[in-house]
């Protein structure tokens, strides 16, 4: 009975539509406004480590400096503050996936459309993953830690992790693979390098200067009126820039 079921579907939909509580706030007359209304970003606290332990910091400083080596274009990932950024993120809501649904069941063989199927939070992924890396280095490189390896060996190891050719002990799909660990660190390093300096990385807006990103400016009418001319304004962070905030951003 196609007609009747279609009708049933429509009326069921209508019923849901009309009986769902109105969650939105209706605004009439004028836009709401409150004095002093502001939602300031949580600034990265300077100094110390809030989640990572010293061994993890040393390893991540080496990894981020291999992923973003110091050169003519920018300082290294470590000197840009990427490890500070990662530490502060892990200590914050990101570290526990506070906003994600993290209850089982987790699929052992997930479809790509199923998204994250690991029960491990970023805090656990870093802690377990870096421990596995330390074990691997100790066993395969005569008791050395990752940061004690020659740079060429570090790069080679990272490449092996990226391609899945190196399998760190104890890391198994679908909870955590070696490639997943590499990708996580790479992702967070890039985020730290390019995010606003208020979050701990991108020191002195170094990455923005490198690629010519203007920062939190959002109006370019002055520039649009002068096509073909170089853009000369300095980048600006959420909390300003050294020309007026007295801080090196």
């Amino acid at each position, binding site marked *: 009975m196609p007609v009747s079921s279609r009708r049933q579907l429509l009326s069921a939909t209508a019923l849901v539509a009309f009986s769902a509580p109105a969650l939105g706030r209706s605004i009439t007359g*004028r836009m709401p*406004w409150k004095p002093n209304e502001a939602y300031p970003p949580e600034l990265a606290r300077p100094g110390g480590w809030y989640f990572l332990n010293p061994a993890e910091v040393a390893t991540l400083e080496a990894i981020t400096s291999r992923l973003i080596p110091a050169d003519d274009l920018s300082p290294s990932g470590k000197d840009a503050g990427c490890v500070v950024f990662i530490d502060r993120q892990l200590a914050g809501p990101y570290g526990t996936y506070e906003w994600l649904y993290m209850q089982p069941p987790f699929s052992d063989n997930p479809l790509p459309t199923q998204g994250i199927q690991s029960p491990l939070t970023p805090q656990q992924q870093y802690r377990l993953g870096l421990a596995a890396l330390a074990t691997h280095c100790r066993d395969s490189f005569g008791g050395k830690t990752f940061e004690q390896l020659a740079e060429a060996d570090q790069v080679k190891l990272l490449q092996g992790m990226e391609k899945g050719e190196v399998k760190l002990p104890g890391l198994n799909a679908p909870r955590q693979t070696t490639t997943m660990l590499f990708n996580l660190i790479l992702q967070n390093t890039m985020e730290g390098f390019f995010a606003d300096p208020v979050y701990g990385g991108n020191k002195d807006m170094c990455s923005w200067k490198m690629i010519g990103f203007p920062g939190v400016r959002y109006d370019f009418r*002055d520039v649009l009126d002068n096509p073909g001319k170089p853009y000369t304004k300095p980048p600006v962070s959420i909390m*300003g820039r050294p020309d*007026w905030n007295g801080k090196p951003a």
Partner: protein
Amino acid sequence: MRAQILAAGFLAAASLLGAGQARADADNFTEVERGKYLAILGDCMACHVGSDGQSMSGGHMLETPFGRIAVPNLTPDPETGIGRWSADDFNRAMHEGKRPDGTHLYPAFPYTSFTLMSRSDNDAVFAYLQAQPAVKNQVDRSTLPFPFNVRLLMAGWNMLNFTPGTFRPDPNKSDEFNRGAYLVEGPGHCGLCHTPRNLIGGDKGGAHLEGGPLQGWFAPSLTADRRTGIGAWTEQEIVEYLRTGVTHRSTASGPMAEVVELSTSRMTEADLKAIAVYLRERAPAPAASNPTPVAATDSRMRAGEAIYLDSCAACHVGNGAGVAGIFPRLADSQFVQQGDPTGVLRVVLQGAKAAATPHAVTGPAMPALGWRMTDQQVADVATYIRNSWGNAAPAVTADQVKAMRSVAGGH
């Protein structure tokens, strides 16, 4: 058929009356309507609005330099409002600043201006107030601290600051000018904010409508000074500002936004024109105050320019021109160039909301910037805005910003 038309007409008329005036009876409908308009001219609602947002049942606390005063209930409730007052009582309050029992009202109630209102206008306002629904709302009328809670003190205050008066039109001026004078000096009580106060809260002598601080804002000068007053405003610009809350020169915000929304935007075009004529012809410009602008090379100006570029220019544009109809112009702005930077600092620290009127419905808002700038940074950007693009006004200090921050609150 004819009976039906009549009946329908009667019903329509009855429902119109019912919708407009709850308690108006046929024999004073015109008087009540006249009083309603006069109450708009006087912006009674701005202070006397009750917690219901509809009635004039009062109750909210008015900030004054001498303490907080709870605004009385003007509805005809016999116990808590003015239901037992007579028209004579009301006229006495308006004309002499006294209650029916002879005790003194405080001049936060602008009887110093309302004293110029005619008896017939006061009667009309009274008729309107009495025609409103009574709302029971007991207001504590003794909230001021000692010694200001002694109402008898106001007798002395009145001796120094107040003479009951009547409006005397200037025979050498047009009817329009005189109507404007009556509106501005009488019911409109513009001077309550726009005239600086003396130490005891009276009008500062010889400074009529020269602008003054109040409630953590600054009401700009209304003199013919071109830099700080309305000397450069055309009649049409003044009318447009009062009617819509916005012109290419300025946008009403803070307490003036309320005045525009509740009062001036509801005035007739003829009355707005009369106000404009009066303000423009009222008095010659006082001795021009042309401060030398702070040099662009000054370190405060350099820092201010960088802050402006990063934090202000996106809306107000690099050259301070703003965007007509939405972002106020800062270059050649009177608000920006007042001698006292209170208004500018308030807006920078706390943000601001423009008036929203039926003629300019958007009511654009400016976000608060106090959270991301230190006192010195706010001072520098204010100094820059006040001394760029042809503007000139005294530099702002971090101490002034600090003082403003304690008033404006926030982060």
